[in-house]
């Protein structure tokens, strides 16, 4: 049995199971009581807000406790080890980090570890959800435990064969060595070490100072496949007879097809094999995707209304503003206040890979392929819509070409399943680029009202009332909250969104009486989170107000933050960013620095940026693009607790900075009469080469913990906030509407609402270089 209650987690023994299998297989029961990550201690003056003591990642870990299943590391006869991780890889480097954990505890080369993505496993229930920057935190100890037990078993097997004690056997780089110079490779012992019956075993994990792989910079395990074009995404899979299928879609969000008026003409088009009506469009299957697009140009559909017809940016914003609650925090009579209202436009969480899923639905079974971060929920709901038992639907999780929140939902897999059922044939259903922007998930528009009061060098109150179009959490997180409701340190009566807000948002400052809350307006948009949920907007409003407070109280933004930050780790990253980034250096007129801090998922981060708002830069011309102010340099200082892979962590920070730049300066959706105007990447202005800083310095602090914090989303909020603060300082006035170009004249000519997919050009040979 494991020993509980030891203060030094590194010396605890962890429990696993030898599994009866042809070669050595070790499983762990993925329980939170055994594998609860350490939590950072924080000394606070302001009473801790819920996020400080119990955050979203903790909730996911605790939710895993009562129902977790077994996850298994296998040592194969060829000397490799394999592990099917119940998570999705969408570019964040999760599979590389997991491989490092296995390699470290097994004493096996990283190139000998194979990581695949597990199919939907209903018995894992809430353990198979990728999100909330939770994967590293939840898997770190269980995966290492399984690998450590496997190593221990290999050592014991070798010792028995050689007639020596286990203490005389060493393992290194996949080879076991005995006292007389004898050796076995792991592969040679993989069968001999296999168990005939299931038994429980414990092992001690390596201590951090002994790590050879964990904590060292490693390239991605899939990098070579990526650069040679071998890495397969859903669209690249060759499933027999799964022909390309695309969907003619309505001219407003969630419109419904009433009738197809020229079906026989469409079926007569080159390559077209099938036409089938779906709840929100008409699916067309053809020999090539291009012939699907051709058919979408021709098909004549009578459409019924959508769910947000008639709504546009201004009418939606009016509803949000009307729903802003009254400020309730009492302000002392003599105190002065800073008060501001902020606006954040709709944004698209689309990755570069358009939504795609493959479905092969037969009479009594179905097989689905898709990048699904919550595959069990997808499996259950797809089974229900097909009229099949859940066990009859096999769901394969494929690697995603980005996610940013999009793959929490299974909209495309559900559509593919219905299309396959109706056509009676396998389909590879792919959304077009306009579909993805216009009918896909969006991050909701929000407004934030902030008021802070100060007196005699102290900030006495900080109140932030965030009001948003409702965010959809109907992808499994809801069930998780219900299961853990008793443990959550938030008041009863909150909605699911309000609960998540309370678990993710907290002010890092000693600002006296601090109140932050969310309320929502329920409009029937297709919404979702977007590389973080509320933090980028909430933190940007907060940090702009912090800079205002500093100015009013006669302090520099950095020294003001130094005086009021609660947490020592956050103070340390702020200090480091200020020194490494050269805070306060002399800069030309029209350029400025901005700095912001953020703490979430047990990580602490500061971002310092330099921005160029001079006319020569702002007015530079690039065809079909938004130029405007340019961030010229960013310095990121991150304390991730323990950085499993510094190279991967740095990549996540770099991406977070580019996302923050886009959210602050260029990227948004404009809703007009129930449909976004954006339909291409030259309409939706994510950061491009002409917007990026040439230099992003990422500094990783020495480990402050034995376990990793969440990192995938951590950089976005402070980057967006730092850019906003820099923009305010360069221009001498605080921006309150984001992105800053949202209200400017549209930088593109919108494509018409119909046909819903745009025909491809034919002049590509005129643009070679």
């Amino acid at each position, binding site marked *: 049995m494991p020993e509980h209650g030891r203060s030094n987690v590194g010396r605890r023994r962890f429990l696993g199971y030898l599994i009866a299998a042809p070669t050595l297989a070790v499983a762990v029961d993925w329980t939170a009581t055994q594998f609860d990550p350490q939590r950072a201690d924080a000394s606070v003056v302001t009473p801790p807000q819920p996020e400080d003591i119990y955050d979203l990642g903790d909730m996911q870990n605790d939710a895993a406790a009562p129902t977790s299943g077994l996850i298994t590391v296998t040592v194969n006869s060829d000397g490799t080890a394999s592990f099917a991780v119940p998570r999705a890889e969408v*570019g*964040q*480097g999760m599979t590389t980090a997991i491989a490092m954990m296995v390699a470290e505890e097994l004493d096996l080369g990283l190139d000998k570890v194979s990581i695949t993505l597990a199919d939907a496993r209903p018995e894992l229930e809430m353990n198979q959800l990728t999100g909330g920057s939770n994967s590293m935190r939840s898997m770190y100890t269980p995966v290492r435990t399984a690998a450590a037990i496997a190593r221990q078993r290999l050592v014991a097997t070798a010792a028995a064969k050689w007639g020596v004690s286990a203490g005389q056997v060493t393992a290194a780089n996949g080879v076991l060595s005995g006292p007389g110079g004898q050796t076995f490779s792991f592969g040679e012992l993989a069968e001999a070490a296999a168990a005939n019956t299931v038994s429980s075993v414990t092992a001690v994990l390596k201590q951090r100072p002994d790590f050879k792989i964990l904590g060292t910079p490693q*390239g*991605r395990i*899939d*990098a070579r*496949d*990526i*650069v*040679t*074009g071998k*890495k397969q*995404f859903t*669209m*690249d899979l060759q499933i027999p007879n799964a*022909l*390309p299928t695309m969907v003619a879609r309505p001219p407003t969000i969630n419109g419904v097809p009433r009738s197809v008026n020229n079906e026989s003409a469409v079926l007569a088009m080159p*390559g077209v094999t099938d036409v089938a009506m779906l709840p929100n469009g008409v699916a067309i299957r053809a*020999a*090539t*995707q*291009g*012939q699907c697009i*051709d058919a979408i140009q021709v098909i004549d559909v009578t459409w019924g209304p959508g769910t947000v017809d008639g709504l546009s940016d201004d009418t939606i914003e009016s509803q949000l503003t009307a729903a802003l609650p009254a400020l309730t925090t009492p302000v002392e009579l003599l105190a002065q206040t800073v008060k501001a209202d902020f606006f954040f436009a709709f944004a698209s969480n*689309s990755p*570069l*890979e*358009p939504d795609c899923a493959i479905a092969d639905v037969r009479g009594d079974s179905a097989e689905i392929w898709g990048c699904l971060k919550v595959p069990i929920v997808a499996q259950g709901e797809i089974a229900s819509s097909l009229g099949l038992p859940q066990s009859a639907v096999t769901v394969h999780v494929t690697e995603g*070409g*980005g996610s940013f929140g999009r793959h929490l939902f299974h909209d495309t897999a559900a559509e593919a399943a219905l299309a396959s059922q109706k056509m009676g044939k396998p389909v590879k259903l792919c959304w077009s*680029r306009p579909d993805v922007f216009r009918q896909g998930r969006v991050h909701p528009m929000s407004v934030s009202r902030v008021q802070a009061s100060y007196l005699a060098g102290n900030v006495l109150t900080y109140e932030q009332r965030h009001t948003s179009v409702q965010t959809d959490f109907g992808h499994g997180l809801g069930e998780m909250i219900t299961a853990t409701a008793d443990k959550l340190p938030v008041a009863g009566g909150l909605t699911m969104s309000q609960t998540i807000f309370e678990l993710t948002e907290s002010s890092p400052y000693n600002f006296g009486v601090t109140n932050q809350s969310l309320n929502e307006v329920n409009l029937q948009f297709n919404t979702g989170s977007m590389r973080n949920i509320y933090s980028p907007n909430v933190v940007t409003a907060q940090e702009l107000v912090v800079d205002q407070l500093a100015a009013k109280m006669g302090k520099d933004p950095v020294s003001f933050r130094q005086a009021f930050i609660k947490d020592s780790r956050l103070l340390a990253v702020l200090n480091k960013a200020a020194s490494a980034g050269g805070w306060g250096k002399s800069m030309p007129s029209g350029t400025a620095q901005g700095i912001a801090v953020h703490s979430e998922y047990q990580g602490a981060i500061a971002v310092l940026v330099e921005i160029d708002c001079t006319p020569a830069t702002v007015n530079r011309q690039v065809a079909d693009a938004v130029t405007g102010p340019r961030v010229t340099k960013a310095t990121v200082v991150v304390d991730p607790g323990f950085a499993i892979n510094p*190279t991967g962590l740095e*990549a996540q920070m*770099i*991406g*977070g*900075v*580019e*996302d923050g730049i886009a959210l602050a300066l260029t990227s948004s959706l404009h809703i007009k009469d129930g449909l976004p105007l954006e339909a*291409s*990447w030259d309409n939706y202005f994510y*950061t*491009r*080469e*002409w917007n*990026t*800083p*040439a*230099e992003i310095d990422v500094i990783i602090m020495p480990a402050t913990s034995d376990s990793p914090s969440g990192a995938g989303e951590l950089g976005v909020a402070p980057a967006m906030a730092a850019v906003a603060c820099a923009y305010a300082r360069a221009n001498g006035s605080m921006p309150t509407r984001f992105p800053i170009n949202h209200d400017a004249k549209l930088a593109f000519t919108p494509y018409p609402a119909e046909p819903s997919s*745009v025909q*491809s*050009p*034919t*002049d*590509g*040979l005129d*643009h*070679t*270089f």
Partner: protein
Amino acid sequence: MATYSFILNGKQVSVDTDGSVRLLWVLRDLLGVTGPKYGCGLDVCKACTSHINGKAFNPCSVQVQDIKSTDQITTIEGLPATANADLHPMQQAWLDNDVAQCGYCQPGQIMAAVALVKEAQANGTTITDADLDGLRNICRCGTYVRLRQAIQDGAQNM
């Protein structure tokens, strides 16, 4: 329906299809060559960037009937052979800088980078920040700073 023929990664191939079908679908859906990615089909995202007779182009925007039987089409799968190596120097630079995140844009990024460097070399110039600013390939993971470093590194060995 007609038969169209061209040289794909060093081999003559032919395919029966409609002449207006864009080359990207011929490659991906009919020939099973999936290195060039579909990101928009609008000649905007550049995820399908490949080479025609050594120059970068986007097959999503070229009809197969506009390709001549003698045209040399090179996709990411055929790039190493153009350098007579297992990996083209630009691919190696990508590995050295651990550029990729999700990887979806990277075949197109590499093909565009190779063409950009070859164009600069033909003009007797080196790659400038302005040249890099002119690349239109989107990386939605935002790994631009590593992309830029890798292009400079790869250029050194081309």
